């Protein structure tokens, strides 16, 4: 029997919906269906080949029935936008152990048009509902924005460092015709943008879109018989962690504990060092997250993340290309963005990305979920 991270599990299909953006003609499930169909086509597999299934946002059985599949392995792990990264990790374990052979993981969300979308509710039955929601912490911009001023202060950074994140990622988005915001911008323009939740201005907050994305996974043995046989993408490291749902109870505002732990687990399981990572995706719901991410993942020292980005290291041509689709800030963000980060990493590893980075052989994908309360990490490689 193979083990989780020894390269015996591959992502053999990866795709998005035909369009992303404003799609009022699609329900959330219809977006999931189109993404799944495209991912299976990309893999050269059919619906009846799927024997494992994972999703979130809606119930896995509800979605499986809608898609007309009959899985013998099911995962509905719901830890926010990084759920799909956790699903990939769980699917790798399932495939390695023989619990499933072909796993479909799907995301579809009508984040902009709200068609067929489950309601978002916070009730007084939860600690967040009792102790944070009543004080006005009702929007992601406020919850994820709340620790940022302390983080910037302790790290010797400022609001300007948040703007540099936007400027750098917009350079990637400018290369991507599917990106929602493609016009290059400046620090001054970002800082003078419409105020949303100080220290965030509008371009420091993710775009809000409709769309879907999906991946298909199977064993390395099966992958050799499939369409992408000469473009393997192997799962060689992963991690998943959780923390308090209450932002006021973060152990420190200067670090996202679940991210730090999940990334550490992923590095340890892969045996890779930071210097061996060619490409990086950090779930960027807001401009603060790539700064936290670079530091918590250990790619920069604490306090060096802003300078690292301002110096151009994460831009096209830089030594650590980051969020190369434009990210949630400029490309797309349906609400649970994680699957789009995975799909972009797969494309880079196959050499099929819109803004292709030369010679990518490893990619690190970092997700966050339920604000700072959950995290999942993947290390993917095309090395055979």
């Amino acid at each position: 029997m193979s083990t989780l991270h020894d390269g015996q599990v591959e992502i053999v299909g990866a795709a998005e919906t035909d369009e992303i953006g404003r799609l009022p003609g699609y329900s959330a499930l219809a977006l999931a269906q189109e993404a799944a169909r495209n991912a299976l086509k990309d893999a050269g597999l059919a619906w009846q080949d799927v024997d494992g299934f994972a999703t979130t946002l809606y119930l896995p059985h509800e979605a499986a029935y809608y898609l007309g599949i009959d899985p013998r392995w099911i995962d509905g792990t719901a830890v926010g936008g990084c759920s799909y990264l956790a699903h990939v990790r769980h699917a790798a374990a399932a495939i390695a152990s023989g619990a499933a052979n072909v796993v479909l993981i799907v995301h579809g969300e009508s984040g902009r048009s709200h068609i067929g979308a489950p309601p978002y509710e916070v009730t007084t039955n939860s600690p967040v509902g009792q102790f944070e929601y009543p004080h006005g912490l009702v929007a992601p911009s406020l919850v994820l924005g709340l620790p940022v001023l302390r983080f910037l202060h302790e790290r010797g950074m400022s609001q300007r460092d948040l703007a540099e994140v936007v400027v750098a990622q917009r350079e990637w988005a400018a290369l991507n015709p599917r990106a929602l915001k493609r016009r290059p911008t400046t620090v001054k323009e970002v800082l003078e943008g419409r105020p949303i939740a100080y220290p965030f201005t509008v371009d420091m907050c993710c775009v809000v879109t409709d769309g879907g994305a999906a991946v298909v996974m199977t064993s390395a043995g099966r992958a050799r018989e499939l369409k992408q046989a000469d473009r393997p993408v192997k799962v060689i490291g992963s991690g998943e962690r959780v923390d308090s749902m209450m932002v006021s109870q973060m152990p420190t505002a200067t670090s996202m504990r679940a991210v730090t732990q999940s990334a550490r687990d992923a590095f340890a399981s892969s045996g890779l060092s930071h210097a061996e990572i060619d490409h990086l995706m950090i779930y960027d719901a807001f401009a603060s997250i790539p700064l936290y991410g670079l530091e918590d993942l250990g790619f920069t020292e604490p306090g060096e993340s802003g300078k690292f980005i301002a110096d151009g290291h994460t831009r096209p041509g830089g030594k650590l290309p980051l969020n190369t689709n434009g990210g949630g800030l400029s490309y797309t963000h349906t609400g649970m963005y994680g699957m789009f980060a995975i799909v972009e990493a797969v494309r880079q590893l196959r050499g099929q990305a819109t803004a292709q980075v030369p010679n990518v052989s490893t990619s690190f994908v970092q997700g966050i979920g339920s604000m700072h309360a959950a995290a999942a990490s993947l290390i993917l490689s095309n090395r055979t």
Partner: protein
Amino acid sequence: VPSSGRGSVYSFVINQIDMPSLLASAPSVIAIVELDEGPRLAAVLGEVDPTPDGVQLDMRVVAKFEQRAGQSVPYFVPETAR
């Protein structure tokens, strides 16, 4: 933990857009207050200018309570405000 109701601003965010579901209208300041006894909690900051220069990290604050739907809800104001 018994508390004196005094503490300091650990971090804050200024809500700058009106959302119908918000209980405090924009602009308003929401903070993580670190009580002198140690615990942290989220609460609205009252009697401050809701602008980037109107609130400072580590600013000293003290708890007040407002009655809302039969419940006593804490918020904090600058120590100098009373």
